[in-house]
């Protein structure tokens, strides 16, 4: 008995990790994915340093006359108020990571849980209404243009600094929920789920322990996509004056610079948009590599982007919507 349980314990400890190790190996063999990984890691380091106060802590200080050109002291010059642009741009990567991580984690968890629940309840006699409810909610949230939804939420929350985060989380979960629901519907029919049910496990345990772990690849990729979508959306929202005001972000810098560039002062714009572009490109490369590494068949088809069956899905419409 004890020998049996230790044997089970050791296989449990190593077996679930093997596919992930293969995934990692495939990811590291893809040079574009590695490039993306390096970019994201460097930005994470910059953000961490800014969060810990190692650098760029004085981004708000007015240390020089306004609109100074680049110099040894201020590498990228200063803003209209005399703040160091380089420090602001570096500190803004902290803001980007804060928004990206908060939205990605919350939205994918919400989407994974609701999508899993919907898929599991779909077609059950007693609880199929849960599926109908989640699908209805998804459809409703996807029918309202994103920026209008954010404006409406900001309207309802009356200037709450978290209005933007709330609006993004409330809309970004739907794509994950759709995909996870479809995956759960597929997995639900497999023999091991039937076996778990036969043994007498409660439905909630079957779902959480046996089905949801298999949706991890989808949730992971969706998390990366939500991360980059949140960062891009923040830029547009700040540009429209709907973003947060309590810190400095690339979106705020670009919004600030719109009148400056036409007057011939480019540094604010160049600093913010270059960092933004490099980070977003890095995350996109990583997301592509991750998708290929997690689904080798997809890589073999060498079909970038989601498969055709998903081409009509709301996330993509949403992604184009966010721009």
């Amino acid at each position, binding site marked *: 008995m004890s020998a049996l349980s230790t044997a089970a314990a050791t296989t449990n400890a190593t077996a679930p990790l093997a596919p992930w190790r293969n995934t990692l190996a495939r990811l590291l063999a893809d040079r574009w994915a590695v490039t993306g990984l390096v970019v994201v890691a460097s930005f994470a380091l910059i953000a961490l340093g800014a969060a810990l106060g190692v650098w760029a802590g004085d981004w708000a200080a007015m240390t020089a006359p306004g609109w100074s050109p680049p110099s040894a002291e201020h590498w990228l010059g200063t803003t209209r108020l005399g703040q160091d642009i380089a420090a602001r741009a570096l500190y803004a990567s902290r803001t980007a990571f804060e928004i990206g991580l908060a939205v990605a984690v919350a939205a994918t968890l919400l989407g994974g849980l609701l999508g899993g629940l919907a898929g599991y309840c779909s077609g059950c006699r007693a609880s199929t209404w849960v599926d109908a409810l989640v699908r*209805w909610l998804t459809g409703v949230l996807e029918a309202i243009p994103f920026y209008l939804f954010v404006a409406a939420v900001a309207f309802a929350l009356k200037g709450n600094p978290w209005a933007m985060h709330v609006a993004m989380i409330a809309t970004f979960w739907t794509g994950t929920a759709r995909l996870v629901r479809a995956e759960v519907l597929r997995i639900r029919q497999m023999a091991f789920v039937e076996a778990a049910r036969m043994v007498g496990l409660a439905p909630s345990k079957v779902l959480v322990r046996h089905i949801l772990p298999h949706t991890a690849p989808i949730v992971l990729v969706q998390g990366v996509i939500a991360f980059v979508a949140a960062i891009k959306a923040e830029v547009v929202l700040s540009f429209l004056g709907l973003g947060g005001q309590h810190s400095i972000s690339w979106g705020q810098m670009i919004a600030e610079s719109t009148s400056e560039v036409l007057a011939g002062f480019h540094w604010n714009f160049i600093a913010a948009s270059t960092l933004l572009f490099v980070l977003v490109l890095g995350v996109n490369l990583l997301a592509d590599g991750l998708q290929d590494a997690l689904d080798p068949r997809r890589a073999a088809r060498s079909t970038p982007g989601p498969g055709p069956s998903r*081409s009509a899905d709301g996330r993509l419409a949403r992604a184009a919507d966010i721009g």
Partner: protein
Amino acid sequence: MSAAVDRPRAMAVAIAGQLAVGGALLVGVTLLSFVLMVHFGPDASFGLVGKNPTAETIDQLREQLGQNRNFWLRYGEYLRELMTLDLGYSDSTGERVASMLARSVPVTLALITPGLVLGNLLAIALALLAAWHRGGWIDRLITGFSVVGMSLSVVIVIIVCQLLFGVVLGWFPVRGWNVQDLGSYVHHVSVPTLATVFVSLGYNTRVFRAVVVEELGRDYVRTARAYGASPVRILFRHVLRNALIPIATRILFSLPLVVVSGSLLLETQFGIPGVGRLTFDAIASGDQPVLKAVVGLSAVLFVLVQVTADLAYRWIDPRLALR
């Protein structure tokens, strides 16, 4: 044989189902925008009461404005407004919201249509080219460019386009919409169109390419090739016709979102008096009657497009009707 007999019946079932889904979605989107913008929205009575109001005068005013009524009665009133297009008067200009929309919608359509048409046609052409040469250098070039394109924030694209064509080259105006004839229309619409095409091209090419690649792997393509059909004939006569449904779906689904969100950015930055500018001003000044009309109407339109599209596909493609 029986399929042919069942088709009208399947169609009737599909219509009934779509009407039920569409009705539920309509209730959802209107309820959501009502709750966010009317129920939690600003209390107009504060602006209207004079100095030092008593509790009675405030209450009287709210009674007059109908703000003391039951939640469902007010929701019913909102629904009536949306259905009859009797949308009240703007808080900031006092103009009828319906006539503001009647004036700005054509401007937005004129602004956004060339970019949408060109962007999608170009994306389809690039997708066909890339998919035909799958894995070759043309494919890699196109997919590489589309990753770069989707990593550029729409805000950056707009500012760079303005800077390049408006300031550096000085070919086109940067602000305003002074359109009398075709020449002045082209003059004003060129730069926004270029920005729209650039922003949408990356995502669209990727998704369309995936659709075409999937379609090229089918048996009928192999057969057509074996018969010696030319690439042009295979791509345009066979593949494109089959790929058109998922592609059209994606375009249709992204339409309301792209039109509203895209025009929001383009029109604010280029100073064009369309729906986007109207919405932006309403967001900035907290103009509730305008905002709730735009959000409500665009969501309702989206749901209607969705339902109609689904039924149209079933009509066009008999395979779908039997699913």
